[in-house]
């Protein structure tokens, strides 16, 4: 899939920006704060409905603007053309997404249609941060491949909020808890088991991609593995799993009631990332964190590419300042041939890496939210 044209209006420091995107790599050069990342965030909005920097749409508004708009024209690998328009109005406080001039009933309808992989300093918590970061990482990949999984996640969160509302209201509604909790538990169990199945299967499928990518980035020396850590101690496969999960919720009832919340389930789970059998989060060096993250992201791209009809767009935000030259060269070599790629850098020397790159690449310079070609700058 190729993003041909991108239009950005009133996002951060971009007043009006229009970019014709090449089929290969687009390199965006500029100082910190010039507005390079905003271009990548805008692409992320079109592909995933969200920026990878913030989940607060209001924070994307240009100063004094009351609405922003992002438009993209995509060509699929099969050759058909699609236009995505996203508008956010501060007054309504929500986004409106149009696909080919028809408004989408729900933002989730867009997920998976225009796949994308982003790597930026914002993703560091995937290897170094809390469990929620790793859950988001795998949930976003699976959601792009299986729409039913995304629907299950949304339903699970809603059911969980309902169950927690009931649990935290014991004083006023003891009778209601006694009579209706079972229905919420049964419902939660069904969805939780489907989510757990998908996550287990995903980790099994994804691990070889991760291993291959890691070898590509740093050579054969290091062994990586992924391990799902479930707070619900049940085997999600098999017909009895939902009933078993339901009984687990019943056993936890007193604890959940005391805490006023649901203490086990997919919303509390984690995934260990192991490097030579050691937990990366607790034991890896700074350099190892970087390479593991890059390998995870390259693996994400290859995984999506082989499980979807569309080749994902790759967004590399400010990864150059993070890496030494050797690593950088190997990452770019890996990225070559992965499809359309957008790269930001504050370092003009980055251009050297593209000096002998293939045709179909392009470099633009950004200053104060204004995009110029190198010819215009000179």
């Amino acid at each position, binding site marked *: 899939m190729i993003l041909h044209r991108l239009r950005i209006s009133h996002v951060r420091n971009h007043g009006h920006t229009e970019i014709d995107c090449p089929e290969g790599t687009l390199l965006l050069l500029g100082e910190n704060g010039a507005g390079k990342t905003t271009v990548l965030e805008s692409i992320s909005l079109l592909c995933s409905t969200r920026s990878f920097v913030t989940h607060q749409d209001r924070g994307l508004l240009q100063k004094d603007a009351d609405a922003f708009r992002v438009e993209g024209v995509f060509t699929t690998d099969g050759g058909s053309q699609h236009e995505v328009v996203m508008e956010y109005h501060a007054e309504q406080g929500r986004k409106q997404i149009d696909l080919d001039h028809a408004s989408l009933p*729900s933002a989730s309808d867009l997920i998976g249609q225009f796949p994308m992989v982003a790597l930026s300093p914002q993703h560091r918590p995937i290897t170094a941060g809390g469990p929620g970061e790793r859950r988001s990482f795998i949930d976003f990949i699976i959601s792009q491949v299986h729409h039913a999984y995304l*629907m299950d996640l*949304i*339903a699970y969160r*809603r*059911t969980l*909020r*309902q*169950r927690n*509302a*009931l649990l935290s*209201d014991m004083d006023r*509604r003891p009778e*209601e808890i006694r*009579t*209706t909790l*079972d*229905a*919420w538990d*049964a*419902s939660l169990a069904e969805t939780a088991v489907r989510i757990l199945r998908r996550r287990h299967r995903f980790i099994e499928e994804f691990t070889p991609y991760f291993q291959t990518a890691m070898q590509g980035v740093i050579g054969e020396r290091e062994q990586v593995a992924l391990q799902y850590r479930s707070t619900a101690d049940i085997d999600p496969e098999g017909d009895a799993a939902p009933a078993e999960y339901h009984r687990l919720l019943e056993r936890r009832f007193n604890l959940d009631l005391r805490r006023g919340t649901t203490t086990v389930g997919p919303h509390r789970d984690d995934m260990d990332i192991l490097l030579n059998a050691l937990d990366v989060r607790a034991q890896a060096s700074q350099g190892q964190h970087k390479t593991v993250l890059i390998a995870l992201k390259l693996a994400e791209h290859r995984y999506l590419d082989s499980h979807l009809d569309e080749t994902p767009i790759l967004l590399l935000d400010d990864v150059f300042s993070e890496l030494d030259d050797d690593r950088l060269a190997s990452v770019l070599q890996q990225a070559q041939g992965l499809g359309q790629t957008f790269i930001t850098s504050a370092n003009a020397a980055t251009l050297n890496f593209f000096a002998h790159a293939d045709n179909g690449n392009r470099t633009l310079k950004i200053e104060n939210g204004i995009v110029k070609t190198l010819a215009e700058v000179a």
Partner: protein
Amino acid sequence: MLSTSPSLDALIAEFSRLPGIGRKTAQRLALWVLKRPRQEVEQMAAALLQVKDHVRTCSICCNITEEDPCTICTSTKRTHSVICVVEESNDVFAIERSNDFRGLYHVLGGSLSPLEGIGPDDLHIRELLDRAKEGVEEIILAMNPNVEGEATTLYLSKLLKPFGVSITRIARGIPMGSDLEYTDAATIARAFEGRIAL
């Protein structure tokens, strides 16, 4: 912003309370009323009061009606041993449009939702249990395909089990997260054919 007429402001405030109507639309509606002939406005006001005075809840199925029991509950052309349980009166309209269901209805008045403070006592569940005791053969649960509808379905199926009636639910050909009310007749018809025992 307030206009120069307190009566107009009051009407705008009333319109603003309607579901899905914002302040701007309310202003437009109020100005429209202002421009209509007096007789037309009287008709409209009378219709509003008429609804309040004459429309009530059927004492059997809890659907909205002007005669109690309602025309569906008293119809001799319908199968009285089958009851389809729905959340709102809108769902009855939707299913009636499809013309595929010839039994009776029961309108719950919503679904379980602790977040909104809606529990079993806030729904017409006791009335449903009373009906289940009296010679009903099948109860079809046709809640909206969302998490609240799902929990309500599970809750009711457990509650109705001791009555020895056959309990089914409509098949989920209807996309999760949508309202039954907005689903087209063909999809609803398919969902009824594919109902499954609980």
